[in-house]
Structures are given as structure tokens and as C-alpha cells.
């Protein structure tokens, strides 16, 4: 195996619940409690598990949206968890995140152009709007949207279209690692398939590494190279897609797999 682009060792993210007043007892929630994994360049690793298992917190910790409690996360050989916000900022270009809710993830006050232009200017990829617009149009095309949408506001788009714009905001920076947090969970099935295909295609074409976080085992099987099953803040089983889905070892993985409703039908797309 080539050297990992992201290498996580014993990551812990604990939250203290804010109790009322200075005398309130503080409870510690161990959202992520000792997680280790590697992602190779061009690889898609999925974190799968049920609500509250800590899978989203892993993603949010890696993007500094939450503070880690302990552990290491080497990205290109550098521990990103210990970086200050200012030191981490340039790295944000390489580590990007796709969010779940396409309705909440776009600022309603900004046009699509402003939303997509912002990261370009922050990271110095465009000097002026003329340059930025060229890149924005290219990226919109990449996600299957016409450049004419640039001047419009998020509320003018459907959920699927907004998620495409969210993906464009990530792709415009040409990141090395994309963290997709339940990226298709909020979409209708028919739209989910479109977006899933798009993410898979973009990942293949650009060779981006991806940490794909989802509760949906079908989606996970479709997109991943390797899968890590999380339960109560820990990874209980990790392996290649085929190991996990065809020969699950851990009782919890088996329970998850057997719980999924199956459709008995003549396979129309086999």
C-alpha cells in the first residue's frame, strides 16, 4: 500500500455537557473514543454506523469544527490536530467537506457566484472576479449545472441542485481529501442516485481521497473501497468493502446488515 494521505491514530473527541451555573455537574460524552484508520491516496473509506455512534464527529474533528481531546491525525505527514486555526487555514484548501443538508449548507443571502467565489479568493486561486467566474463556470459544468445559475440565490434551487452546488464549492478548490458527511441522506431516492453517481465520478476522475460518512449501508457499499463500522465512539470492524459486506466478523456489523429491508425482485439492473 502506498503511503496514507491521512493517518489517524487513537483519535478521541469528548464533549463536556454545559451544566447550568458554576456548580452544575459536568458530564463527559465520549463521542469519539480512540479511533484509528488510514486513507490511501485516491481511496474512499466509509465510516458507517447508527445515529450517535460518533461518525460525524470524526469528520468534524478533522476539519477543526470540533476540538479533539487526544490522538493524532497526520495529513501529508503533518499532525493537523495540533495546528492553530491560522496554521490550519491554508490546509483547508486540501481538506474539504460536503455537508448533509443542502437547504442549510448554503448561505441564503449570497448568490451562487458569491458562495463559490469566496473560497477562491480566500486561497488566492483567483485575483479578480473575471478569473473567478471562469473557474466557477468550469466547476458548475463539472457538477452538471449551467453557468447561468451564478447570479441566482439558493432558494431558487431544488435539494438535488443545491447539493450539486455544495459539491461545486468543494471541488472548486481541487482538494486532496474530501470528507462527505451524510452527503446524500437528505435527498429523494431518485435524486440521491444522481448525486451519488456524480460524487463517484468526480472522485474517480480526480483521484481525490475521500472519507465518506453515512448511515446507509447500501450507499456505503456503492461508493467505498474500504469500510469502517463504528459503534459507540469506536470502530468495531474495518475492512475492504467485500470483507465487510460479504464476510462480516463483528456481531454488530452482522446485526446492521441483517436489519436492512431487502426487495425480492428480478434484478433489473444486474
Amino acid at each position, binding site marked *: 500500500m502506498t503511503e496514507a494521505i491521512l493517518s489517524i491514530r487513537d483519535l478521541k473527541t469528548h464533549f463536556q455537557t454545559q451544566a447550568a451555573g458554576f456548580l452544575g455537574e459536568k458530564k463527559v460524552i465520549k463521542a469519539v473514543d480512540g479511533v484509528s484508520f488510514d486513507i490511501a491516496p485516491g481511496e474512499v473509506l466509509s465510516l458507517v454506523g447508527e445515529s450517535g455512534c460518533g461518525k460525524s464527529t470524526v469528520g468534524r474533528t478533522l476539519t477543526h469544527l470540533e476540538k479533539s481531546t487526544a490522538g493524532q491525525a497526520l495529513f501529508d505527514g503533518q499532525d493537523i490536530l495540533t495546528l492553530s486555526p491560522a496554521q490550519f487555514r491554508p490546509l483547508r484548501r486540501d481538506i474539504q467537506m460536503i455537508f448533509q443538508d443542502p437547504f442549510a449548507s448554503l448561505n441564503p443571502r449570497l448568490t451562487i457566484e458569491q458562495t463559490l467565489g469566496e473560497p477562491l479568493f480566500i486561497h488566492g486561486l483567483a485575483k479578480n472576479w473575471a478569473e473567478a467566474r471562469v473557474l466557477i463556470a468550469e466547476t458548475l459544468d463539472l457538477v452538471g449545472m449551467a453557468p447561468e445559475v451564478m447570479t441566482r440565490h439558493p432558494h431558487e434551487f431544488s435539494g438535488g441542485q443545491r447539493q450539486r452546488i455544495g459539491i461545486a464549492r468543494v471541488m472548486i478548490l481541487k482538494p486532496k481529501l474530501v470528507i462527505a458527511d451524510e452527503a446524500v441522506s437528505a435527498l429523494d*431516492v431518485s435524486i440521491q442516485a444522481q448525486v451519488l453517481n456524480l460524487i463517484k465520478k468526480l472522485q474517480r476522475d480526480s483521484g481525490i481521497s475521500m472519507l465518506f460518512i453515512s448511515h446507509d449501508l447500501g*450507499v456505503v*457499499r456503492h461508493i467505498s473501497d474500504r469500510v469502517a463500522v463504528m459503534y459507540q465512539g469506536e470502530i468495531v470492524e474495518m475492512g475492504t468493502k467485500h470483507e465487510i459486506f460479504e464476510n462480516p466478523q463483528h456481531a454488530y456489523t452482522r446485526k446492521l446488515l*441483517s*436489519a436492512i429491508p*431487502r426487495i425480492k*425482485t428480478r434484478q433489473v*439492473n444486474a
Partner: protein
Amino acid sequence: MALLEVENLHIAVSVGGVLQPVVRGISFTVDDNETLGIVGESGCGKSMTSLAIMGLLEGTPVRITDGSIRYDGTELLQLSSKQRRAIMGNRMAMIFQEPMTSLNPVYRIGDQIIESLRQHKSISKKAARARAIELLDLVRIPNPSERVDSFPHQMSGGQRQRVMIAMALSCDPKLLIADEPTTALDVTVQKEVLELMSDLQERTGTAIIIISHDLGVIAETCDKVSVMYRGKIVEAGTTENLFERLAHPYTRGLLNSIPVVDHDVEWLEAIPGRVPTLGEELSGCAFHPRCPIATGLCIAKTPGDTYIAGNHAVKCHYADQVAS
């Protein structure tokens, strides 16, 4: 005569004084001991249909504009509100999508079940409480005699949905409507809740309507399926028949869109385009803009029902072609 007969039901929502059709003439029946699944994507009208049957549209901008809903031979749409309420929660009960918010946070769960019981049955408080504990036990809440005094926030989502089921079943309804009953739950909990529902059905013979966006849930739990698209049932039949020969391009597309866990698919055969919005006018077959086999006929003419096998009905001009 079936227990529930819905005929040519039309529902519209008033947006700024203009009625926009949501459900455009649907018909189906459900009988004792039978589970009907209604499946479709957001905005197809499936939830409105369930609220219309239950009688919960009062006070909303949604109106039933045409059609009939008969329960046990009685036309529900002609009953007074009082007569309607005597059936609601009694002969006919409903559970909802959000177990976290569907119970009143300020009352103990036992009291909420008792309220439902005493609304329709002359039964003492003590007997009602005993019955509530029995019901909680029935829906497999551990320690029911203690949990009866819990508040909703002290329970998990799965447990709350069980409480909802217990409450719905309190007056032994003949029809249970479940609107996305497991959408908010984790898969393992979903499995338990669905199993519970079918076990209870075996015991009580209740007719069940499950509304869901999840074809898998429907396929696994229902005897009959109706697939809705933009206010119409585009394909309906017994679960066996329907999944054996999917005959509508939409149903087929829906199925192909689902990434499955049991084998690899390189690319999903997604349905192109987007789900039509409310008030968008589409001529002929509403699915034509997204349909891979649409022709001029589909744009010009609204398809009627084509019967494939037995009562497997499909609204597609080319149903026979698709099915084979």
C-alpha cells in the same frame, strides 16, 4: 366490501388563495388483516392522503376537492366532525414520522395512553392504567409498570414509537395508518418496530396502511403496494406481482436508484431530472420529462390503467413493453 375504500380522491392545497392539486384522483382499498404500502418521493401526495383518510386536514390549508373515502361502508367525508372524532383514535388510529415530537412532552406516557382509552371507552382510571401497562408490555417496552410513569424525553426514539403504537392500538382499531413510521429511526430499531407491527397485525387482524419513501420497507412489510408519482398511483398490485414484473418506468427507475447492500453496482441507473414542484403544469403522463421511453403520445395523452396480471395496474402507455 373492503374495510377502507378510497375512490377518486382529489386533494388540493391552497397557496395564496389558489388551490394547487396535490392528489389527483387516487383509488385503493384495504381489507382486514391486510397491509397496504404507499410509496413515493417527497411531494407525491402520500402523506396528504393519509391525513385525509384519518380526518386531520381540518384547520390546514389542504382541502379534499373530490372523491370518496368509505370506512366499513360509511362515507367518511359526509360525517359531522363529531361523528368523525368518534371513529378517530378508536376504529382508526395513526402513528407519525417523528416519534421524538409526536408525544406531548409535559404528560407521562401512561397518561397519554389512558387519555386515548378513556376518550372512547367508558373505563375506570384504574382499569385504564392497567390496560396501558398491558399495552406497553404488548409493544415490548421493558418494565412496563414502571415506564408507564415516564415522560417522553426519558425514552429513546424507538421506544417512543412503540409508545405511539401502543396508544394507537389502545382502542383496538380496525385500521392503523403509519406515516413514515420508521424514517426517523436507525435501521436496527426500524427492523424491530416493523416486526412488532406485523406481529401485532397477526394477533389482532388490523388493517395497516404504511406510507413510506423507502421501497425496501414497503417490499418487506406490505401485502399490496401503490406507487405514487405527482398525486397519482402510477403502479399498484400485490407486492409479489408488482416486484416480479415492475411495469412502470418510474417504479423501475426508483428501484434502480437504490444502491443495494448485497451486490456491487458500478453506476446507479438514476432517474434524470428532478421531482416536479407543486403547481408545475405537465401534460399527459406527468413522468414524461424524466422517462427514458417517453414518446409524443406520453406528452399528449394521460395514460389510463393497464392491467398486467390480475389486479396489477399500471398507468403507462407502454406498460406491457416495460413489464416484459
